[in-house]
């Protein structure tokens, strides 16, 4: 059932642009006065680097733009630029992100507030361009903040928010913004692009403070450490990640105040959950077929809702548990896999299970894997997931088996 939408017109002090997710990121980076960016080609994220190159070539953005010879160097270069006080941006997809892995590992403990875009892409082998979430998920234990966005608008806004959050001295951790490859990186939508004046009110300058690498500050950063100090260093990272929650709430509140728009809940989007019997969960652009599917089911009298997680790290455990407690059954659709995990479920399903473990209300939870390698998530898939949830709600319990939807058996 199609829903008619009307263009809303530009918000005050914004202009409207028809841009892709990648282009929206480049708009935000221009407004944020990015200092250093490194590029390396891999589909589908590299359109963001192409968009940035155009901004620089046309004089809209002044930044050092370096084309690296591989992703390991690509990320290492901006990591180091950040330590002398430069605001940096980087990004990759799939195995490119994997090639940078050593750098991704050290960036959080170095407290480098790098902001990256991950154009989610299936990992080789086989070489495939379609979307899967495993690339970005691989760093989930390491101290990266992780967020999934599903529209070009959200990509633009989140890029600005990311610098505000990452560069807050209470946090000083890197952030990876995940955008589904092709579906978001390459598709265009009307975006509200704020003025430079608004962004300057929202985003302070990057100030590395006492950690700045400069001849006036002869510190030694990251000396080798033994068993006498490592666990304390890790604990500092743990505390920083815990502080990120309050910083995120603050940043979004300020964003709404300055921009005159923005989500009330930074952590996840709730769609028709107020009276939902069944709540489905999915990250990224899977939200589109899920929302259409939900509207169709609503027309049939089925009260289904969607929670679309945004921030995956830090995981909003309490808020998520509260939002899920009203459901009679939950269906998590992972666009990722975790072979050999408990119940062979995807990553998100097991995280939700863990979040619910100590909750007073633990609705039956069904785990689905769908849409890997860019395979379309169909309305039939969504309906099937919801129906299986209804069966579990009726029985009062769920089969913990993971169901793969849309696979040719």
């Amino acid at each position, binding site marked *: 059932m199609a829903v008619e939408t009307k263009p809303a017109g530009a918000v005050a002090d914004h202009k409207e642009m028809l841009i892709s997710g990648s282009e929206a990121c480049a708009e935000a980076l221009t407004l944020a006065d990015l200092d250093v960016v490194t590029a390396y080609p891999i589909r589908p994220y590299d359109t963001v680097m192409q968009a940035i190159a155009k901004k620089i070539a046309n004089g809209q953005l002044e930044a050092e733009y370096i084309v690296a010879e591989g992703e390991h160097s690509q990320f290492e270069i901006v990591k*180091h630029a950040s330590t002398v006080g*430069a605001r940096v941006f980087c990004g990759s997809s799939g195995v490119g992100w994997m090639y940078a892995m050593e750098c991704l590992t050290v960036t959080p403990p170095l407290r480098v507030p790098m902001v990256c875009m991950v154009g989610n892409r299936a990992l080789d082998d086989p070489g495939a361009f379609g979307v899967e979430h495993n690339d970005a998920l691989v760093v989930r234990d390491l101290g990266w903040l992780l967020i999934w966005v599903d529209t070009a608008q959200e990509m633009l806004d989140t890029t600005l928010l990311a610098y505000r959050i990452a560069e807050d001295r209470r946090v000083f951790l890197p952030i990876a913004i995940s955008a589904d490859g092709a579906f978001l990186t390459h598709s265009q939508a009307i975006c509200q692009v704020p003025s430079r004046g608004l962004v300057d009110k929202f985003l302070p300058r990057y100030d590395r403070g006492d950690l700045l690498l400069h001849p006036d500050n002869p510190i030694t950063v990251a000396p080798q450490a033994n068993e006498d100090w490592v666990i304390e260093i890790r604990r500092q990272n743990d505390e920083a990640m815990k502080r990120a929650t309050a910083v995120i709430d603050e940043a979004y509140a300020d964003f709404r105040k300055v921009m005159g728009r923005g989500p009330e809940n930074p952590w996840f989007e709730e769609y028709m959950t107020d009276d939902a019997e069944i709540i489905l969960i999915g990250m990224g652009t899977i939200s589109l077929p899920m929302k259409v599917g939900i509207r169709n089911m609503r027309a049939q009298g089925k009260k289904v809702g969607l929670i679309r997680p945004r921030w995956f790290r830090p995981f909003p455990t309490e808020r998520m548990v509260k939002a899920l407690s009203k459901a009679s059954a939950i269906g998590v659709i992972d666009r990722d896999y975790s072979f050999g995990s408990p119940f062979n479920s995807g990553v998100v399903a097991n995280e939700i299970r863990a979040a619910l473990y100590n909750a007073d209300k633990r609705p039956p939870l069904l785990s689905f894997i769908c849409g890997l390698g860019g395979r379309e998530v169909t309305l039939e898939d969504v309906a099937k997931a919801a129906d299986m949830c209804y069966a579990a709600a009726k029985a009062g319990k769920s089969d913990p088996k993971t169901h793969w939807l849309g696979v040719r058996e």
Partner: protein
Amino acid sequence: MADTAFTNATQILEPFKGVKKVTIEEYFTSGHRTCQGCESALVMKLMVKAAGPRTIVLGSTGCMYVANTTYYTTPWVVPWMHTQLGSSGSAALGTSAGLKALMRKGKMKSEPINVIAFCGDGGGADMGLGAISATLTHKEYNSLILLYDNESYANTDIQLSGSTPYGANTTFSPPGSVKRIIHTRWKKNTAGMLAAGHPECRYVATVDASYAVEMMNKVRKALTIGGPTFIHSLDPCPKGWDYDPMLSHELGELAVETGVFPLYEVEDGVVRHYGKTKAIVEGRPRKPVREYLLKQGRFAHFTEEDLEYFQAKVDEMWDKWEIPGVIPFWKERPGTK
């Protein structure tokens, strides 16, 4: 916000006119735990003494990281940061680009700040070669990459690298009863390769801390000339090469006097040999390589055949190479027309 307009200028570091004119300030002092007789530690001290206090040093993983900078101590009196094993090129480039961006945009005070990234032979000539190569193509970013070559992955207990000499005993190439020589590869010609491969890189040089003033002056030249630069230092290593620590200085001299290690620089494409190497090019007889090799326990298993093979390969460097000691291109092969 900027006090002065940005020019991308480097510091003007004049060469020291002799050992008595060398500055006395130390920017690498106590606080490290390197081996007795560690030549690389001396290289670190001389490198940063030559550079002076307006310097940022990036140190990739290796002996000069693990043995040098262990929390809660540090020998570095300049700002220093760790970087990954294969990242010295990226660290130099990123640090330099970050400073340039901020100075150009008036976000920080403009001044020429030395950026030096160091690497060992393993991290630099093996794992990080690609990154160093990329950095040497970026003529708009000033930096020095200094490779300290102790001819093994020394920190991890002396494993062979692409810079380990033919036949050497390492923990990955121990001479045994069935296989006496496991490592049959000839040492990479790193400095020559980098000079030849990056036509816009203005300065590539080899140094040996046994000739300390020359070494420091080459560091100063590299930091003054502008753009990305590379220096390769040969560092005798008592643990890896297996000799009494007091012999480090002597072995550094023998490496040059036998012609095994050449001292030269390539400045804007012009090759200049230095010191005893220059004398060799001009006809002075080289000391036999066995004088150098047999002072080191890592070659104790060598037979006459091995020594002759080694000598023949070194002879080629000076008798056959078009640019002696620098580039292994022959004018022609015997027996071919």
